[in-house]
């Protein structure tokens, strides 16, 4: 059913503020022999999506992208390979707005997700950098803490 909605973000590019491009270059694996401990994310979309999740978890307000000088880093077609991410982004949109009608507006959903990503990126970068170990361990520990803290609450 509804095959044409399989990836509603197919034709939407993801533009991210230029100030974060270095972080994408540094923390995402750009070749097969990348040092995983230093660059924990297999692809750029993984860093972007984790930022969406962290911002959502921390209940941050979406950033105003218009304030930034942005460049495209990811093509929306990438979600075709991870359909669960499409569903997750739709659910985030419904959960954040309380409006189910939003599912028919892919651009609105993407704008919300990207706003969250930009709000979450500084947090994720902080998680990668804060600690005495390599970025992958710093990040793992920070996610561990985030999940446990919220559970305890």
């Amino acid at each position: 059913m509804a095959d044409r909605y399989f990836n509603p973000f197919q034709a939407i590019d993801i533009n991210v503020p230029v100030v974060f491009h270095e972080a994408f270059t540094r923390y995402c694996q750009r070749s097969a022999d990348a040092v995983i401990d230093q660059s924990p994310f297999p692809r750029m979309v993984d860093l972007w999506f984790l930022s969406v999740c962290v911002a959502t978890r921390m209940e941050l307000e979406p950033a105003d992208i218009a304030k930034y000088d942005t460049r495209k880093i990811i093509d929306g077609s990438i979600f075709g390979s991870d359909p669960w991410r499409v569903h997750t982004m739709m659910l985030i949109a419904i959960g954040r707005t309380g409006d189910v009608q939003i599912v028919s507006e892919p651009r609105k959903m993407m704008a919300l997700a990207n706003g969250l990503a930009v709000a979450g990126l500084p947090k994720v970068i902080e998680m990668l950098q804060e600690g005495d170990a390599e970025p992958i361990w710093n990040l793992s520990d920070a996610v561990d803490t985030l999940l446990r803290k919220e559970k305890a609450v």
Partner: protein
Amino acid sequence: MKLLRAEFHNFRLLRDLELEFSSDPVRKLTVVRAANESGKTTILHGLQWALYGDAALPGKGEGFRLHPIDWEASESKRVPITATVEFELTTYRRTSGTMRETRRRYRIVRSAFEDVDSQVRRSGSTVKLFALNDSGASPIDAPEALINDELPPELREVFFTDGDRALSFIEADVALSTKRERVQRAIRSLLGLGVIDDAIKHVYKSASEVNKKAKQVGSGSELNKIASRLEAMEDTREKLDADLEDAKQQFGAFDEKVEELDRKIEAALQKGDKEKLRKDLDHAKREIKQLDDQLAAANKEHSALFRGRSIATDLLAPVLGRAFEKLEELHEQGKIPNTTIPVLQDRLATEICICGETLKAGDLGGDKRRAHIQKLIDDSQRADEIQEIITDLYYSAKPLQGERDDGSSAWLEEYRKVVERRDGIQALRDEAGRKFRALELQLDSLPDTDIQGLRETRRQYKDQRNRYLSNQSALETQLTGLRREREEREAERDRLLREQKKGARILAELEVTQDVMKVLQTAYKRITNEELQKVSELMNSIFLEMIGADPEQGAIIRRAEISQEFDIIVYGPNDRTLNPDRDLNGASRRALTLAFILALTKVSEVEAPNVIDTPLGMTSGFVKRSILRTAVRESAQLILFLTHDEIAGCEEIIDEAAGVVFTLTNPAHYPRMLVNDPGIRGKVLRCACDHRGECPLCMRHADAQVELEAAS
């Protein structure tokens, strides 16, 4: 190109030998049957020397003797060495709408002299090429150019393959970058990307020329300074590029030397009665390799934690919960139709209800039930677009909800397992490293001077190798910095040009060069990637066909591919990467490299021979036959040097596919392996016996008998 004939004089064991090869398009296989040490590898070297000169010899011919080792100085102190190869080239020409095929025959002759006093000294070789026709032979200038066009030297190892050496594309002993460089070089040569490379260099030069014009426009000004700086940067870039290429090649060369010394040290330990130490070292090295692979896999698992579903569902649990509540509300209100339409439609088609009652049209009860079901279908189908999306979301996102309902954090559990695995393997790796260092100390304390000498040389080579690697990193960093600075300066120059009256035209010229450069670079990348994909797919299908009959490997190998980074990777179940050294048996390793070589030759669409020495070693049974059958099918001309053991079991395939079969015999094998004394020593002899035949010259003792005698 097809090889037709070869002739060798005083080329090592080949004092006087002539060979013919099958050029028949149907029976395209030539089999040279020869036991070990009967000149198979020497012929492979001889053919390549004839075509490419000293560069094709081991160690680029340095210190590599060519004349027969038992050459009597009394015969002559100066040994004439000659290798001749005759080949056929087919060209195609379009005339009045039809393709015209022309075949021409050529002969290439290479000769050199070696002095046989105290040291081997070889004169530079002379090469001549002749076009052959009915009336004789006409000399052709610049023979190298024709050979380079038809059989590019970079692809030499693809056309002339030593079955064992071919494994160098996948073996784990050399550095990853070296393997990658080999595969990359082979693929790029295959595509003839040298033409685009030259074009890029040409455009760089043109851009420099235009930059000079910019310099003149703004004489003495800021523009002049920037243009001068760009000019200097271009010179630096050229130099850095050349240095980087050199560093890469030197790294590869030293890497191979280290590997060769490892083999020599191993052999010396065997000879020197240090078998236990050799075994321990070998075991320790293998263990380290295995643990390093496991560590790499565990690191990947760790990284995968940040792209999987668990981290998202755990972090998003609160917001997903709210969204699911909304969807659940809609579902309860009946606004989400059930996904039963296909089921109901199926029931109508089969005319039996889910409850077992009939749905036959014309039947009173059946008609009533049909109408009810049809109404259900129609109601469901009336759902509007949003309902459709929500319905899809409601059902498709169930797994995300399931994970949330589980209560515990799936990600934390996965993370705990990854930490345990990484820490566990790391501890084993540290221990294995300590063991290996202890064994190395033991090795250092051995009084054996040969071994210590080899180890010292190895250390020096390894230092050199590491120096080139470090140099490579430094050069790459400098080039990145230079590229960035150049982009900034170019932008500044273009801005200043816009302000000048005469600048517009120069700017337009610069834009053209930049556009052409972009087109060329994109084309280069695209061709490489597309062709890489073709080679990868063909290699995979040939490989799987070759090993298809092997139940042991068939169960663990799913596919093979060449990655974008030019790594040859084999996958097992669940896309787990397999280590060719550890997880593949000898037959599969050989099949993989042969599949790569055949795929490369085929994708290149170059009609070229594949000359392969001992391709079926370490293979047996169905797999051996499958490798041979596939190789015959995929190659334009296949010349195989096979031992008697390799032939065993494949006779029928050879009966069918071979146009030429003959046997080579080394008289030195009498009396241990040969039944009759050939009455001559020091040179390889040829007889017309095929893969099934035997004559007084080539008749051998049965293997069992030879082994028995050797044991006693």
